């Protein structure tokens, strides 16, 4: 009897939440627009494969070899030649002004050096952006077979076979990661406002005088957004698959289970925020406090393994880090959540403990 009543009260809250969500046109629109727009934007924009770095050339030799080398650099597509200067001072000034990111200095005795098989010239590079600096370093051993006609290349020490993303397309890595980032953002935002909004609007004062129990209120608030989360995941992965050609190698059942676990964990995190914050603005600030580390530390932008240990520990607390591993494993490598018991259990534990904390923190007393 009391169990049936609980179910009915949870259902009442859920139905009410869905009605309110449907009437809030902007929020309802955001459910679809956030994943849609952000996927298209980031899917095209984020590219870790550096190309077309603007560079300048200072060719003091003014020789045929110099012109050959410049053409060879253009062919690599790493750099795009934007300017020619007479002196290295001028080139350095252009780097300072930010017009070019690097400059190639070719000495007057270039032809001689080429004949003696010496180092030909010097790249001066704006090294402040490590990604660009890394790309320019690739040019250090640029092959010159076509100019000299001699094969100077040594055989490679190792062969590298690239699995899962042989063409090295960034989108393949970005799209599954975007599911984690976008779900973190929307799920936490929705529920972090959930309790606070009722408090601000005065609804809570009435609700706490009714027989509703904190756990029932929490569950009732979470349920509608699980559906919202699944809709968003479908949009991201569907578009990712058809527009960005991201392979979905794992089974849909595994995908669904992994995502449900993460949605539940994110929603509980939002609920905890909602029981701490006194105003919607505070809830928003706390949400941002969570979202930024999610984007930067979860392995979405940078490899998790490259971070220092303390940063890794912090990242391990966040549900997004664990989901990032699960979703990439399932989508890209055809893995199963059973292959990652630690990440799976973390999400389950986070949800259960989170719901308990939120229920305990939500007091039906005013003092």
């Amino acid at each position: 009897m009391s169990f049936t009543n609980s179910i009915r009260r949870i259902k009442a809250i859920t139905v009410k939440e869905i009605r309110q969500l449907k009437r809030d046109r902007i929020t309802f629109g955001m459910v679809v627009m956030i994943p849609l727009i952000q996927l298209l934007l980031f899917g095209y924009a984020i590219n870790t494969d550096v190309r077309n770095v603007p560079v300048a050339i200072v060719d003091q030799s003014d020789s045929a070899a110099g012109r050959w080398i410049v053409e060879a650099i253009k062919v690599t597509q790493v750099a795009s030649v934007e300017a020619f200067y007479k002196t290295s001072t001028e080139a350095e000034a252009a780097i300072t002004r930010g017009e070019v990111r690097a400059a190639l200095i070719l000495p007057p005795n270039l032809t001689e050096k080429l004949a003696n098989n010496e180092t030909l010239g010097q790249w001066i590079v704006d090294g402040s952006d490590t990604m660009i600096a890394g790309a320019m370093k690739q040019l250090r051993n640029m092959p010159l077979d076509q100019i000299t006609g001699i094969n100077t290349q040594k055989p490679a020490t190792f062969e590298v076979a690239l699995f899962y993303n042989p063409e090295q397309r960034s989108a393949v890595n970005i799209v599954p990661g975007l599911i984690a980032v976008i779900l973190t953002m929307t799920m936490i935002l929705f529920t972090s406002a959930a309790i606070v909004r009722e408090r601000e609007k005065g609804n809570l004062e009435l609700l706490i005088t009714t027989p509703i129990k904190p756990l029932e209120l929490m569950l009732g608030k979470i349920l509608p957004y699980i559906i919202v989360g699944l809709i968003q995941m479908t949009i991201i992965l569907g578009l990712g698959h058809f527009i960005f050609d991201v392979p979905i190698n794992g089974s849909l059942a595994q995908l669904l289970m992994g995502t449900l676990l993460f949605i539940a964990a994110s929603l509980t995190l939002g609920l905890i925020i909602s029981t701490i914050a006194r105003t919607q603005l505070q809830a928003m600030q706390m949400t941002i406090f969570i979202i930024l580390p999610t984007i930067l530390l979860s392995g979405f932008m940078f490899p998790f393994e490259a971070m220092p240990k303390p940063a890794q520990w912090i990242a391990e607390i966040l549900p997004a880090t664990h989901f990032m591993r699960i979703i990439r494993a399932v989508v890209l490598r055809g893995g199963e959540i059973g292959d990652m018991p630690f990440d799976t259990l973390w999400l389950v534990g986070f949800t259960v403990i989170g719901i308990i904390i939120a229920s305990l923190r939500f007091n039906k007393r005013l003092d």
Partner: protein
Amino acid sequence: MSNLSPSSELAIDAKGLTKKFGQLAAVSDLNLQVPKGHIYGFLGPNGCGKSTSIRMLTGLLTPTEGSIQVLGMSIPKQAEALRLRIGYMTQKFSLYEDLTVKENLEFISQIYCLSPNDSRSKISQLISTYNLLKQQHQFAGTLSGGQKQRLSLACACLNEPELLFLDEPTSAVDPQNRRDFWEQLFDLSETGTSILVTTHYMDEAERCHGLAIMEQGFIRADGSPNDLMQQMGVNVLEVSHSSLRELKNSLLAFKEIKSAAQLGSRLRVLVDNRVTDPNAWLRQARPDLKQAEIRLAPPNLEDVFVTVTGQQPSSPIISAEV
């Protein structure tokens, strides 16, 4: 007028209730006995401890000291069980503005786990009782003050409560709606529902069976409105005079004068009833009043309020003539 006999069953029995927020005592040593079936009023200015008292009685706040029995249950220990038997109408509109009238009622009925049949019949009955038929599919946020208040009362009555707590239910409502609202309260009282209502309107306080006047966390006087007026210990005189401001200030210097307040072209003067002939005493105290028109007026609750609190009912107290 109804004095409570010790044998009468009490809906609320609170003893020595004190609530402190830090150093500040919001309510001090409050004793309250409300018999079943009564409409009991808390009269007092904003911030006098009315809402805090109601929140303690409903188990939302834990009293610093004192004991509470509501409907025979010990509060705050049995607050959850009490919630099924009471209705609560908050001071601020607390229903969902983006749900319709009917959806709000349905929501509350589901929270109280009414069976679908009970819920349907109860909701349609409440919609017609509280005259919300035309608005039933309107969003609650677009209702007028009076309609919002009727919807709140309807929601508070969904679970057929034995005891209703109404926290300033009429603060955003016009006089006609207030009058209708009180008719509805009397209808509920008729069916045996006990009601505790807070107000700062004197005319509403006058309609209650019993009444407590609160000020700064203390009950200054309690009883039926009639008893309070009888026991006030003053006679009320109304004086017509040309320079009322000056007269008022000079009269307040006499210790026999409890209060003087201007009402249009008259001055309402409360004279200690130990003065046997107040009319003659006044003419003697102020010889220039010999020709003035002075008449004895029936006391009202505002006079009671002034005498028990020792101050004029300044801005927070509104004496509204309906």
